[in-house]
């Protein structure tokens, strides 16, 4: 099953490689990983998407907790949560295709943030599956490049992952 693990970790150099190293050394898979400092610059928040059965996920969370730099973590998949991913897509356009791309972007509530005579850059956020759907909807040969942040997430309700 897919799990989203949200981690509060000391914002030390090397913290990221400890997490990445753990996954490669123990053969766990990482689908995506995002990281940035929080409102407290001494802490980083990491969101890691992985897959595995219950036993593997249990080991992953235990092993992550064992890292000295990890302050706290939760598995967002265990409760109600919100997930968002940011995507930037550069799309090749022709006079004929422009209208169609614009309406696609509207349907998916994206924004066109850069325009040239032959291309658009589209910005879109949402659940990863929505971003997948958008890409799927574009003509395959029209996509010049895709940049995705990987999902980040937060739990619903007033409880949160903080010190």
């Amino acid at each position, binding site marked *: 099953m897919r799990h989203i693990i949200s981690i509060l*970790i*000391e914002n030390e*150099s*090397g913290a990221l*490689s*400890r997490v990445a*190293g753990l996954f490669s*050394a123990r053969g766990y898979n990482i689908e995506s990983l995002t990281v940035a400092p929080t409102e407290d610059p001494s802490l980083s928040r990491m969101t890691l998407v992985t897959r595995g059965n219950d*036993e593997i996920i*249990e*080991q992953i969370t*235990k*092993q992550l*907790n*064992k890292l*000295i*730099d*990890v*302050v706290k973590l939760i598995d967002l998949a265990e409760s109600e949560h919100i997930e968002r991913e940011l995507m930037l897509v550069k799309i090749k356009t022709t006079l004929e295709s422009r209208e169609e791309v614009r309406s696609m972007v509207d349907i998916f509530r994206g924004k066109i943030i850069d325009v040239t005579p032959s291309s658009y850059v589209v910005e879109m956020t949402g659940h990863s599956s929505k971003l997948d759907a958008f890409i799927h909807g574009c003509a395959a040969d029209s996509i010049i490049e895709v940049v995705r942040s990987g999902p980040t997430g937060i739990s619903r309700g007033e409880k949160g992952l903080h*010190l």
Partner: protein
Amino acid sequence: MDINEVVYQTFFPAAGKIIILGGFFEGSILELSGGHILVQCLKDEGVEYVFGYPGGAVLHIYDAIFHQEDVKHILVRHEQGAAHAADAYARATGKPGVVLVTSGPGATNAVTGIATAYMDSIPLVILSGQVPSPVIGSDAFQEVDTVGITRPCVKHNFLVKDVNLLAETIKKAFYVATTGRPGPVLVDIPKDITDPNIKVPYHYPEKISMRSYNPVVSGHKGQIKKAVELLLSAKRPIIYSGGGVVLGEAHRELIELTRLLGFPITQTLMGLGAYPAPDPLFLGMLGMHGTYEANMAMHESDVILAVGARFDDRVTGKLTEFCPYAKIIHIDIDPASISKTVKVDIPIVGDVKPVLEQMLELIKAGNLKPDSEELKAWWDVIESWRQVDCLAYDRDSGLIKPQYVVEQLYQVTGGNAYVTSDVGQHQMYAAQFYHFNKPRRWINSGGLGTMGFGLPAAIGVKLAFPDADVACITGEASIQMCIQELSTALQYNTPVKIVNLNNRYMGMVRQWQEFSYQCRYSQSYMDTIPDFVKLAEAYGHVGIRVEQPEDVRGALEEAFSLKDRTVFLDFVTDRTENVYPMIEAGKAHHDMKLRVAPSAPLDRELS
């Protein structure tokens, strides 16, 4: 000059400006360079010995060491030896071992020793020099990414970026290394951090807390209660204890609990000594080379109490057939050890000692007792397994049997020696035939299985306990991996006895090749084995070669009577001997390969 200032000037001739704010030592602030701070931290931490080897990146530190005598430096001959010696010092004393190496090759040479300590959860603090901060990342002379290289084999590591944080970082290193599940912690120190010209106020924190690190201690009360209830309802119980009992200093509690319940107990290779081996409740070691009775009892048990043991694959054998009838209680300080390979029924995360204490209290306070009839029936079955006499070997052989040498060593030392070992058949004979009756006496590399561990380890132990008998049981292949430490043994006068079970083979490898590769002994022997007697003599020690069984006892007695000499005993043993019993890779506990011993009736069913 203030009197305090005079005192400090005397103690620290190389120290800088001194600011005295209060009374004698209280509240005073001392300004020191990074090198002196490091040495002062070690003193304040109560460190007796540092095992190390100098080089460019640590010269400032070595200069600070030169100016004092409280922390004694042991100069090894190879950095691997430093790590093993410090590791064994820690295993024998329970105090953290300290290692000091230079950057680049100094650090990489230490890695095998660090990984060895990591796999067996041994508290070590490794101080490594690094190239100066400004040139890190430029492929500077003797630069390696030590933090990166060691990351997977340390509990934690630090790169010091500011001399003002040095003392606090050292405190954190000792704190992390020695608390929770112990392990090695490395502090990488760029050369500019120890610059003698940069002095900063020194303060060694007495206590430290880290928001990201809070190891658990006491176990969950409800879980402990459930565990006790399950134990008392067991019909075929067994206690399976491991290195965690040694690390957690809980042998007294383990002994009391085992005797109170009257349950059979088996121990892992790392647990040996916590429960006294000569005791009738002890079934011997379990696992790949464990006894028939221990493995059969595990297999047939209905309740297992696992204490500070981590269900290693050498212990469990084939996982899908591991202990099919048992409910398992598991006490471990590291949650990640629990249900890692084997699913357990009652996990208890906590330090063994307080958890066992709570169990004892509950059992004593309650009125439930183990069912004595069921237990008696269980013991009857176990006794029948014991009759198999799985460790029997040919005592009439004209060749020296390695088991016999270990038995004689046990007798000559009254069972009281510290025994270190290398890796191979000799290690298993030591585990099977030296009946350890105290914890911290059996010093070996279990998790990583590092050949070369034994000799430097013996030196580390002898430094810790100069009056104790220290023996290193080794093989002719293993001993050559750190043989250079014979020189260290002479320099620091650490008279250890090396018991070389010389079978002219990498016996353990040869045994696997005999069983699984139709005796194709590919590269498992060396044509050119040195003359160990001459070699010992060349290093300034005594060498004795023993070729006849009848000379074994006398040679051992002679070696131990030479109290102040390191003696290399080269026993020429039967080169065809194998370690039995053996659970071959991928097989289950009840599927053991046994020796068909001359003393055993041939028509019995083996499993």
